[in-house]
């Protein structure tokens, strides 16, 4: 999929683990893991808002678009 989730990099910069983020945004670790590994098909605005609020970042910092990657 051309949309890439770059949550790992932002988490590393903030010094947070996925578990800590899951607790902070009140989303299950399993769902965050699906998001982080690029297995999610869609993302709610509410999830994006919660992650951006906690990580103090812009949506563009955790999502990127690579048109050359056509894998489903």
């Amino acid at each position, binding site marked *: 999929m051309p949309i890439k989730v770059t949550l790992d990099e932002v988490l590393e910069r903030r010094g947070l683990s996925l578990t800590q983020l899951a607790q902070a945004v009140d*989303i299950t670790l399993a*769902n*965050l893991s*699906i*998001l982080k590994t690029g*297995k*999610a*098909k*869609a*993302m*709610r605005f509410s*999830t994006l808002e919660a992650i951006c609020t906690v990580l103090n970042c812009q949506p563009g910092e955790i999502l990127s678009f690579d048109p050359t990657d056509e894998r489903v």
Partner: protein
Amino acid sequence: MFTRDRLTETAWIVIGLGRVLNWLFLLGVLLLLVLSWLFAESLISFLSNSNPGVDAASEATGLRLEMLIGILAAIATGRLLAALRDVLATARAGDPFVAANAGRLQAMGWALLALQLLDIPASLLGRFVPSLGSAAPNGDISLGGWMAVLLLFVLSRVFAAGAVMRDDLEGTV
């Protein structure tokens, strides 16, 4: 929840019983049809003796056609019950909103449509083979049956759309 479980379990037993009875009916009619050819003379002689006023040969042909309609109806009923059992199995497993059930509902729609269409030859048989008398099949057009066909095809589409939506929702974070 208990009531729903009991309903599901009862339906499971009823469908299972229905399938067994349908198979027995199919085998019985198939056997009778074969016997009607093997012992054709005995059959005609029996029909002549039991009702001397009617054309026994015509009555025998009518009975064979009636048995053929019965066999086709049993095949359609078997397919309908098998699909219904598979749908119910997914409900028992707690996961009925799957794409496969859309196909099963469509198969049930086709089977029920076949049953409805069999009313036409059944009705014609009663009309054109009067020698069958009270043995003629009841080929009345059932409005409820046609509505059920429509309902099944519509439900099939609803399930297909629902399964896609659920699939999307499952991948949504």
